[in-house]
């Protein structure tokens, strides 16, 4: 190579650092999806093609909504990063397998539009997008997203009563039909991907090990549920369910690992994350005890999402700051 050859090279000129860990948006999305697979497979094994239908419609319509809206808003199309598909998947896992297809599609569309794109797309949403879509269809078409009646048509090898509805309408004494181990292994009615507590726990641990989430939010979420439930249970153990029941039913486990940990709607500093998780757990139990809704996970997370900008003000100290200011 001659000197002239070298001088004529067109070099890449860019700011430091010049290396990268290799982390990427699609990598993180893929990790979340992989973590959801065990619970999803369990849901499909339980409900068969009904579950497949809901999941595919949700994912497809979320991706289509993203593409259409980004075209419409003249934004670069980023369907390929998988984040829209993940929103669809998370939404589907919260739904009963009996939901009509148009409602699933509508939920996905609302998730992407109101939950994500109006706030500027990925990273901008103040709420977990999937929960916005879920809340919209849950409040508008209650009869379709109802675990009490929708399950009658399925032949499942466990009680077809939704545990949290039993608690709501019949009280804690009626809970003797549910055994903690059955609940833990997913032998309960619920969202098609939220019932397999053991498998969700495995998926959650996978997320932790891969480092895409930290322990703060899930652990404090579960801790918040347990503590609040314990307080109620202590005051009247005949009227209120025990903490273990609360932890093993509804979307608590799913919410702790997959809903509350949504990046843009949760804090980034450790103390704020712990408070965020505790708040989610606290409101979940309050909703279950005092609201008309059997489960309160989604609403609890949405409430804490609103508080997120406030929690973001809690920041760790910058080392050496005082000395610098004194100087």
């Amino acid at each position, binding site marked *: *190579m001659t*000197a002239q050859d*070298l*001088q004529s*090279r*067109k*070099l*890449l*000129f*860019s*700011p*430091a*650092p*010049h*290396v*990268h*860990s*290799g*982390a*990427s*948006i699609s*990598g*993180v999305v893929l990790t979340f999806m992989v973590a959801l697979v065990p619970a999803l497979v369990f849901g499909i094994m339980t409900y068969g093609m009904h579950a497949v239908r809901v999941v595919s419609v949700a994912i497809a319509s979320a991706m289509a909504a993203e593409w259409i809206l980004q075209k419409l808003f003249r934004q*670069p199309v*980023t369907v390929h*990063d998988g984040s829209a598909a993940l929103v669809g998947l998370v939404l589907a896992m919260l739904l009963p397998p009996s939901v009509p297809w148009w409602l699933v599609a509508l939920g996905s569309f609302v998730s992407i539009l109101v939950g994500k794109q109006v706030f*500027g*797309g*990925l*990273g*901008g949403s103040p709420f977990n997008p999937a929960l916005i879509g879920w809340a919209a269809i849950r409040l508008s078409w209650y009869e379709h997203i109802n675990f009490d009646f929708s399950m009658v048509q399925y032949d499942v090898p466990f009680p077809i009563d939704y545990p949290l509805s039993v608690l709501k309408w019949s009280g804690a004494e009626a809970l003797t039909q549910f055994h903690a181990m059955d609940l833990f292994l997913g032998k309960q009615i619920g969202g098609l991907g939220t019932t397999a507590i053991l498998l969700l726990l495995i998926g959650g641990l996978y997320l*932790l*090990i*891969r*480092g*895409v989430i*930290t322990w703060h939010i899930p652990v404090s979420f579960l801790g918040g549920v347990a503590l609040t439930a314990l307080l109620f249970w202590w005051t009247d153990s005949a009227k209120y369910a025990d903490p273990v029941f609360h932890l093993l039913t509804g979307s608590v486990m799913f919410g702790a690992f997959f809903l509350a940990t949504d*990046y*843009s709607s*949760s*804090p*980034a*500093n450790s103390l704020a994350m712990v408070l965020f998780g505790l708040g989610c757990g606290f409101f979940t139990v309050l909703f279950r005890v005092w609201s008309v809704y059997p489960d309160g996970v989604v609403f609890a997370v949405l409430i804490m999402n609103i508080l997120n900008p406030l929690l*973001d003000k809690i*920041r*760790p*100290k*910058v*080392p*050496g*700051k005082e*000395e*610098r200011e004194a100087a």
Partner: protein
Amino acid sequence: MRRIFGILPTRLWYESVELPYEEFPVPERAMILVAGEGVTPGKGDRIRSGERIRSAGGAVMGFSPVTGEIEECLDIRWSDGEVYTGLVVATAADEWELPITGGEYLSQSPAEVRSLLAEAGFTVPAAGERVIVSCLERDLLVSTARQALRGGDAAAGLRLLEHLGAGEIVVAVPEDLAEAAAAFAGERVTVVRSYHPYGMAPLLERECGAGTVLGIEELLAMVTALRTGRPFCEKLVTLIDRGGRPVKNLRVRVGTPVSDIIRAYDIPVEDGDRVVLGGPLCGRSISRLDFPVLVDTDAVLVQGHDDIIPIGEGSCLSCGACVRVCPYNLQAHLLSRYVEFSLFERCEDLDIDSCIECGLCAYVCTARRPLVQFIQFGKRELARIKEEEAQEEEEEVTA
């Protein structure tokens, strides 16, 4: 550098292998890079090794590392936005014009030695000041501190510091050099963390207590200057080949064009590759290969275009990876967004000036945002705004 177990904190360890060492010959054509315009001597002048180079205002900007005729004066703009003058010198055999007289310095008074060092362009720690002698690398893949320690007379360096009347002297070393360092520094050795960015001065101060951080190479250069009268003009440089492979430690005359080094070791450079002065996390990329080795260039890094992960164009996800990795607990995710939308005052509330630009936040960023560049830009804009405000106030006072 993909990681499977992301739960473990990011640890980027400094190099601990000893590389083969070579002295690089004086180049045929050197480039002396000086900040500012209108420096003397200029085009057509003959310059001698060790001769002072002055700015338009007459301040000493540096010393010529080579002897020869200045063929050209180039205006060069670098990534910091500043203008530099590149003096291209056709070199000849060294003729020294020494800024100071070398010799036996320990017999002279500390004040005399101090002024000699200042004459030769060194910043000397004040009498009684605590000094941290760093044997740590300043970036990944670099091993110049290790090389300096291996080839130099570190004991003489410590004697010099004692003679200058420095306060407590701490010798900061990575674990594996503790024994070697204890041989000349004894009780003064402090083993510090040897992963990035703990080799950077502010973090060394955090590890060892406040003090002036002095790199081992600079300390040894002071000894050389006092003995020979020569200013700092030979730099240790780690040559890093494609694939992040350090291949050699070189002693290079400052001003040696990068292209000379690359050619001497047959490192292929193609269009779209990146060549960096310094290490992978804090180094600065160059746009032309006649760019020279500078007094603070620890490495010449060549990166093939296949190894380069391009910067992402998307927005921040708020995943918090940058927050977890920051040694100063800064909110890089917020800072970068505030800078993006020109909210510089908010950056000040988030202590943007505490950032030491170690590069870890951008290294881990999921969205691959150029976080360090955002922060650098924010700092500059903030400084500019403050300057303007101060000027306005002054004008009001005079009016």
